[in-house]
């Protein structure tokens, strides 16, 4: 799976979690851009990403992530391992 394919799947997850099928994210999207992106929904994102890609994060790894780009980089790294 290449980065673009991963990005597509992550976008779907964002749309489901925030219940907005027109939501478009990019690498620079962060919690300032999405109203509902609070700490609780952050966990929701993480859990759904873990399930989708069959990977496990430790929460320290993810709480440090500042935007979508960094999130996807970490997914790429985990999948390649």
């Amino acid at each position, binding site marked *: 799976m290449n980065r673009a394919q991963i990005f597509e799947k992550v976008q779907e997850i964002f749309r489901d*979690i925030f219940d907005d099928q027109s939501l478009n994210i990019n690498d620079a999207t962060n919690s300032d851009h999405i109203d509902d992106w609070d700490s609780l929904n952050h*966990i929701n994102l993480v859990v759904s990403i873990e*399930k989708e890609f069959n990977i496990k994060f430790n*929460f320290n790894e993810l*709480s440090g992530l500042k935007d979508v780009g960094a999130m996807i980089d970490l997914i790429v790294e985990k999948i390649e391992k």
Partner: protein
Amino acid sequence: MITSLTYPFDISIILRKKKAIKRELLLKSPQTAINVAILGGSTTDEMKNILELFLLNNGFLPNFYQSEYNKFYEDAVFDNEELSLFKPDIILIHTSVVNITEYPRFSDNSEDVDQLLRIELRKFKTIWQSLAKYNCAIIQNNFDLPLNRSLGSLDCYDIHGKTFFISKLNLEFSNSAGEIKNLYINDINYLSASIGIKNWFDRNLWHSAKYAISFDSMPLYAHQVASIVKAIVGGPKKCLVLDLDNTCWGGIIGDDGLDGICLGNETAQGESFMYFQNYVKELKERGVILAVCSKNEHDLAKEGFLHPDSVLKFEDFTSFQANWEPKSENIKKIADQINIGLDSLVFIDDNSVEREIVSSQLPVVSVPDAGSDVMNFVDHIEKNAYFEIVSLSNDDVNRNKFYQDNNARLEQESLFRSYDEFLISLGMVAEIKPFSSLYIDRITQLINKTNQFNLTTKRYVIGEIEAISGDENYIKLYGKLTDKFGDNGLITILIGQIIDQACHLDLWLMSCRVLKRNMEFALLDRLVEECQKRGVTEIIGYYYRTPKNNMVAGFYKTMGFELVSTEGENSVWKLMVNSYKIKNNLIKIDNE
């Protein structure tokens, strides 16, 4: 039906699309509003969101109160204006192993350990006592086992062991629930074991966000809570309808014959069918009505239950429809014959086409997607909690006898020249009395599950019934009916509130198994008598239309009330007490 919320539950979809699922559920109407207070010993937000889905799916429109993080004790025990104003119908005490204050130390002696146990138990008993003032149902989690136990297996029987300590606490919780009327245990000890403690508790999630249950377990937890709520307020399904070939036994009785069907301990498959039959028999013994709906020749189908290894017998089924009519028609016949609503039926069939026909023709019948393997049928029945109950009354255990007695009555009926003659022959004896503590459970249970013969369909929790039972401003009567075929148990309830010189009937209901027996006349006689004693001059009856209580739309008219007003399909009726004439002359009243 929302598939992801039905067993085996699509957990990924629930977690990811819960907002969309909620929107879809909110389109369905009508919903019963219910106030649920969650007093948490850990983070509750996400659990609340998922619980909301399952409650909506069960026909409730929940409104939530959540305590601040880990403030379950303070919220319960100290004055709490916000919670009082919220008027909870249900309080969920969402605690678990992380909320145990202190475990035994290795230096403790057995008295120290007992003392610790008492202290921990007192904490919860104080909570339950303090919450009693809300007169609502309290759902209390028992304890899951901890992830780690440094003593290994010894931990479960050495007095210093954590798992031993927790097991004792859980036993005390169970005993308390037996003593305290409003207290119901949510068995997370069982749930976590069935999920596996390692999957149930996510340390990462606990350390970072203080969730004491993993996200993967939350839907199962929420479903279990919603099932208890449904059992308290809504009532269970009543009848399990079974197909025969490849559902109750392996093979086709019509082709393979009695000797050819697969049932019994000789083969793995035969044993699976027996396991299923044993489970069904157990359901029957605790009050679930059984019926057969099968495409078969009636006599051949019946013969299957003569198999020496058949746990179920022909007599276990209250309705037996084996013929070549469409199954949806037969299921309607079953509901008519037993005299219950179609929405009280659960249908199990190994054939997906038959399931599809029934669920498309009769969408209110519960048809789980049980597959074709008998190994999975029990889970589809149990994990959807169709028949979940919160108390086991004698009436539940005897109910099947009632329905069988009823069939004997039906057979008798045709032998008499007039219906009155038949009724007289029944030798009916009724007991009609004000509520007493002995029957509070049964009264509450009947109130919350009766849909057809129910004028207002007002629901009450047990605390409200206790309060009314001691309140002089209410006339509150129950009726029991016995006849020569058996004891029908407590089958009718009436609650009237006295305001000035009028008695307003908040509730009048009767179990359909005593329809057309004149019991309503006997009850009205007694109501009038009670009114006269209290100087009440008029009785005001209310009919509130629901999708199910059409049968009593004209009830007050039949009983001699005059129409006062109508609003839409609802109506108000009036009866003057002084011109009343006794109506019952067929049922003997014995209140001794």
